[in-house]
């Protein structure tokens, strides 16, 4: 398949915090939008269309895109919304360019976890008949997946503690991260048990924040002052919703998504061909489990990467050098932040967490309980 080349030419993210009480979500979107325009060296009239990423339950209103349509500069333009992770917002935005309908797309994601009740909101992601009445929500359903990973693959909570230590340490180099922490494996292991086997420091925080990217085709990148970072491949897939329908230790949808993304971008051996990854570690165990799904590790061996330092910021294959989702988790925004972090690394403007080798990177987002659906992006400097 030949498609128009599309690049990321502008990015911005707010600082993430437990509660940004000085900004409502339109204020956050305004900050992200103007930041991305400034980063691209573009003006709003050079944006052909806007894709917003938001969730009505988190915002507490329906058609939540309409609450931010002025803040994202969509006056007089087409605006459409993805109610899902920001990586899928980027997918929709890129498809609007690949289709030939638009030359540039602004994708902007916002979320304020502080304003609603995360337990009640994530309980509401489950079907009302079979799962929701049980009281399941994000943490307890993830705990079932974490335990499945132990039962099926012999995964070790100590390995996950290494992930938590690594990512919170990386966050100390990232001014946008919410939870820069000096931790030890012992500190993580002795943090309060939330839902066995997940402890407090295995879980990502509640966060407020927003981010935005600007995508452009080959003709339109010349309007940007910024070095383009190319979308080289993308893959996406979903699996069944009911937890019992799935083998939770075998991320089937991620395997499918990864293979599509590798095939499109000509990656034969992801471990060798990728320089670094940013994956959706909403919980510590997810990083190794997703690395297995991405074909970076063999099943059951994902935990080795953090434990042996391979995925460290100075390791052979750095994972979540930004601090990852464990260090800032604005829901829906966090996947698009993974993509932004890959862009910053490839541009060599990541600052204190800049990697030496960052020519081609992978960004990953999830949607639905226990990673029901996945989106995998490959980005490169050429």
């Amino acid at each position, binding site marked *: 398949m030949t498609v128009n080349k599309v690049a990321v030419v502008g990015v911005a993210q707010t600082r993430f915090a437990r509660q940004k*009480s000085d900004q409502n979500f339109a204020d956050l979107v305004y900050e992200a939008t103007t930041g991305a325009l400034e980063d691209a060296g573009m003006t709003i009239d050079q944006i052909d269309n806007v894709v917003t990423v938001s969730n009505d339950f988190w915002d507490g209103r329906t058609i939540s895109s309409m609450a931010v349509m002025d803040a994202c500069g969509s006056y007089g333009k087409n605006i459409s919304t993805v109610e899902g992770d920001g990586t899928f917002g980027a997918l929709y935005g890129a498809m609007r360019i690949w289709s030939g309908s638009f030359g540039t797309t602004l994708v902007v994601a916002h979320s304020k976890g502080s304003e609603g009740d995360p337990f009640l909101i994530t309980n509401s992601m489950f079907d009302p*008949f079979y799962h929701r009445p*049980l009281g*399941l929500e994000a943490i*307890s359903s993830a705990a*079932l997946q974490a335990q*499945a990973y132990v039962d099926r693959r012999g995964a070790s909570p100590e390995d996950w503690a290494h992930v938590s230590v690594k990512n919170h340490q990386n966050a100390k180099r990232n001014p946008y991260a919410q939870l820069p922490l000096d931790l030890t494996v012992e500190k993580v292991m002795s943090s309060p048990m939330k*839902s066995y*086997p*997940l402890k407090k420091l295995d879980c990502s925080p509640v966060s407020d924040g927003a981010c935005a990217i600007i995508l452009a085709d080959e003709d339109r990148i010349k309007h940007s002052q910024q070095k383009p970072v190319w979308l080289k491949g993308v893959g996406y897939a979903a699996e069944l919703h009911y937890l019992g329908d799935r083998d939770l230790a075998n991320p089937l949808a991620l395997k499918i998504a990864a293979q599509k993304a590798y095939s499109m971008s000509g990656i034969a051996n992801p471990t060798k061909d990728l320089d670094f990854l940013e994956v959706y570690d909403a919980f510590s165990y997810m990083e190794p489990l997703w690395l297995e799904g991405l074909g970076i590790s063999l099943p059951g061996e994902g935990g080795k990467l953090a434990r042996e330092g391979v995925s460290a910021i100075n390791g052979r294959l750095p994972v979540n050098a930004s601090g990852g989702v464990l260090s800032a988790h604005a829901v829906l925004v966090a996947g698009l932040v993974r993509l932004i972090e890959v862009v910053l690394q490839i541009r060599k403007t990541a600052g204190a967490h800049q990697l030496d080798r960052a020519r081609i990177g992978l960004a990953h987002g999830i949607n639905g309980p226990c990673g029901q659906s996945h989106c995998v992006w490959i980005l490169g400097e050429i």
Partner: protein
Amino acid sequence: MDDQWRQETKPLILEGGIHMPYTWTVGRTGSRFFIELRDHRRLMGNRCSKCQVVWVPPRLRCPECYIAMGDDSWIEVGPEGTLRHFTIVNYSHPAQPMPPPFAYGIIDLDRAGRAITHLIAGTNLNNLKPGIRLKPVWSPNRQGTILDIAYFTPIGG
């Protein structure tokens, strides 16, 4: 952004909430499942004629093969089963049906090809482990919902 008015204005917080009642139709397939629970304390699944997987709860179509489930596809499963995975919840929130600590289990009901998720209680949770046998504890006041099974508990305590 250092204008004086910005520094002097303390942002206000608006407290509110949304209470939004629904009347969700369960559909005939789901209704038959819940009526069997309520009236006969029976758990029902249905078997795909192509892949032979028995799905619980029952489906209109096999989720994997996308083949319509026939009238003869229904079979009784459980009510006993085997614990596949579990978690013990230590925090509380208003949507939980019982106070913590309690457990959730992914449970393979006998004769079913896919598992269900439900509560586990009425036992020392520290003794839970994959592979133990479980039975349902029926609610005395069954209404045709998933909580007509109050929870599952280990056979033999």
